[in-house]
């Protein structure tokens, strides 16, 4: 049982992720963008964060960087729908900035469950 914060600007994606996490018995909280995500992070104190890369208000990269500052050991899963800047893939950037896993959209529920299992401490 762990607390998982989900940050994505698309509600269907948030819902899907919450459903998957819930199916695995985790407690979830969702935020629509990076800024809200950080607020929720402070309030919710999640064990793991799943964040989209391309969002309004606050970008995924920036969000990851801030989360890392707040808690350097926080497991972060970055998800992306394939957007890119120039020649760079968001997911690769995310990895560079400290995301523990990068998963491309659309993902299977199994892929997310596997990542969660791997990243969350067994005790939790």
């Amino acid at each position, binding site marked *: 049982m762990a607390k998982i914060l989900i940050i994505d600007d698309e509600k269907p994606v948030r819902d899907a992720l919450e459903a998957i996490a819930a199916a695995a018995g985790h407690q979830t909280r969702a935020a629509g963008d990076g800024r809200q995500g950080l607020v929720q992070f402070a309030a919710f104190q999640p064990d793991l964060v799943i964040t989209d890369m391309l969002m309004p208000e606050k970008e995924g990269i920036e969000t990851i960087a801030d989360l890392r500052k707040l808690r350097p050991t926080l497991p972060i899963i970055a998800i992306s729908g394939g957007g890119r800047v120039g020649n760079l893939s968001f997911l690769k950037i995310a990895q560079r900035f400290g995301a523990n896993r990068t998963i491309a959209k*659309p993902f299977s*529920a199994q892929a997310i469950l596997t990542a969660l299992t791997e990243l969350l401490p067994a005790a939790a």
Partner: protein
Amino acid sequence: MSQDSQTTRTPATSLRRLRLGILAISAAVMIGHAANEYGAMLEEKAEAVDGAVRNAETLLISLDEHLGRTLQAAESMIRLGASQIEAELHEREFDTAAIHKAFIDIHRGTSQLRGLGFIDAFGNLSFYTTPNPDPAQPRINAKDREYFTFHRAHPSSEVLIGRPSPSRATGDMIVPLTRRVNHPDGSFAGVVLGALEAAYFNSFYSRLGTGTRALSIFGSDAIMLVRMPSDPKQVGTSFAHRPLFRDHIGQHESGWYRRPAEGDESARYVVYRRATGIPFVLAATIEEPTILAAWHEKLPAKLLTVAGVLLALAMFTGLLLRTTYRQERLAVDLQASEAQFRDFAQSSSDWQWETGPDHRFTRFVGKVDRLDELKAAFLGKSRVDIADPNQLPPGWQQHVQDINAHRPFRDFIYRRVSSDGVIRYAKTSGTPVFGGNGEFLGYRGTASDVTDVVLAEEHASASRKLLANAIETLHEGFVLFDAQDRFVRCNSKFREIYAESADLLVPGTHYENILRHAAELGQFPESIGRTGKWIKQAMAYHHIMASTRQRQLPGGRWVEVREVKLAEGGSVGIHIDITETKLAQEQLRESEERLRSIAANLTQVILEFSVDREGVIHQTFVSERCQDLLGYTADEIMADPMIFARIIEPEFLAAYCQTLADAERAMAPVEVEYRFRRRDGEKRWARSMLRPRQGPDGTVLWDGTINDATEEKAAEGQRRELENQLRHLQRIEAVGTLAGGMAHEINNKLVPIVTFSELMLMKTAEDDPNHRPLQTIHDAAERIRDLVARILSMSRSETPGSTPIEIKTVAANAIDLLRATLRPNVRLSLEADGAGSVRGDGAQLEQVLVNLCTNAAHAIGTNQGHIRLAVDEIEIDEGVAGAGHLPRGHYARLRVIDNGCGMTPQTTQRVFEPFFTTKSVGEGTGLGLSIVHGIIVSHGGRITVESAVGEGTTFTILLPRSVANESSPKEPAANDDATHARPQTASM
């Protein structure tokens, strides 16, 4: 003076008589001497003839004797022969062989007879001692011979000397000597024949040494028997009508006569004699020159002697005469000079005059009709008195001085006004007369009225002056030569042109001399080294009716010489200094040459032509460059007005003509492009800029250029291709960008579909009615995800890995992957030929090959087919067809070649576009080849396709080859290449 002439007559007459006497005596002596000598010479001549004739007569007498003896000997042999036969006839048997032998014995003893034989009673020659030279000849018969008939008729046994005739056996002249042979009863048994050979006499007479004499023997019937030296033409002919027989033998037994010269034959003496007792006539002929040779030899000495004597006599006479002549001449000369003077005075002058010591006229004599007027006007007056001080004639002062100094004067012309008021001129000459003591007595002289002459001369002089002035005003050099090519006159311009020859320009100088002098001075550069020939040429020009030529002078000057022959003979030459014109021509020529040279160096062809009112084209100039561009020389083009109509390709010709016609109407320059055939058949593009302008009389003049537009056209084509490529890439890029954006959206939307369906499936048992629909939703979502993933991979622009990859390995891997999937009806082969390695992403390249081969397999379908994967290496140079815009260098080439159904050109063109597919819905997304294209472009390479429906398709991939041991991709050169080769990639 006339009263002295009478006194000289008497001495001249008496002297003449004396002289006649001397001449008469001298002539008589000379004639006498000459006649005497002439007589002596004739006498000597007659003696020479007499001697010769006497010698000949002596010779004939001895011949007569010899002939008689010869006949006698012959007769005796014949008689002997005849008696032998008659004796044999008494015998019972007539032994012909024995007789023949006996005859041979008889004949052997003689040389006079040619042969001895027997003719039987029938006229047949029974035998003959000398064998017949021609055994084939038929037996000789003598029945018709005169002697045979005679002997048969007459029983006489005398020897008969027959008529000379040609032998029946040999044809030689023989005299037959015959005797009758009787049988014992006295009847005719035959004839013994001895042939006296004419040639015998020849040999005999030649021994006598007849020298220049000719000897002949004639029969009594005038037939010539023998002649020495021999003359076959005359021997055997009759001389009956010749003078010898006609005039002489008849009258005299012997004698001589002179036969005058006939034609080529000289005169000769003929001595003749009738032989004694035998019927022959002997004659000797001696040529007169032979007889008189000695006489002729002595003749010149004789004549010389006579001439010497006569000359001496003549000289003596001459001396005598000379003295008399001298005396006479003095007298006669005096007489003649008086007469001469009188005649001259009268014929050369109109009147004679005399003046006294005070120069006043004292006498006028003459035949002029104005004598009375002269006398009235001048007698008692001096010349000074008469002279009009206002109209003193030229030379008057000198004349007065001469008179006062008592010097003679000649042809002084003075002017006077006659009583009828007419101006008259008289020409007068005078000689001073001095008395015995040397005192001056006055002048005697003659005068003539020369008014007409003076007036004519004045007129002529005025004309000459006018002409001279006219000639002088000419700007051209003028020269006149007479009919004998002698200089007459020239003007100062001529002298100026030929200043060096001015000394020779005096009347009378021959033209040739003037030329030679100037040529020798080197005045005519073209004559140097060939003066003789040059002068000959110049004279030839001078002699033709009219000629114009140019002549070079030193200092680079040129003269045009025009010569015209005058009808009266002579010629006029006009010499024009054309140096300036020549210089201008030269400059013009140089300028044209320069223009031509410039035109030849331009890459364009410069041309100029005109079209006359009839539409005929005249090419007037084409620069040499035309040979490079058109393959025709300038001369060929100028010679062929229709050449452009022939070489311009038919589909361009109408437009070309139309353009020119429009330009002509508007009189505006035009530019026209067309394709033409070079002479070598190569088709090229040309662009002509042509400018019309109005020429005289309706002609239109054109000038302009022709440019070779072939390369430009080719470049244009290339540019168009590049533009197409760019457009193509842009379209692919735009689609890619769009796809990228859409992919993001779709991916987001797919997340709930995939995950919820997945979660729900987890909770739903397989036999649950919802399980299957959920599975379908999930699979469809997965399909969409794959599709989007592909779109993204197409628009992904990550730089492929830059590790060197062995192309052969890539190909082999692809083949391995394919073998499992391909149907057995498709054969797959790899033809690898060391393509080396390229930098890039091996997996991507594998995917490319797999993709292409899969497409190929689809194209083959269920038919039997073959896919060849060919790998090799090529070097791309600039301009390699199909290489497009790739930079130069070494490339790995991968080709996927199938023999499948192929594609239409429309399909081929769009094959790399995203979402373009020929497959049915669900079979393919249409993204495969666009992804392939993207991968190749991102590797800095290029992919092209060639296809033909029903034959198959070939995809060709070119990838820049990396140097085998190169590990760092950051070399500057490689970088350069990358930036060049991948502009499109960056923008995707």
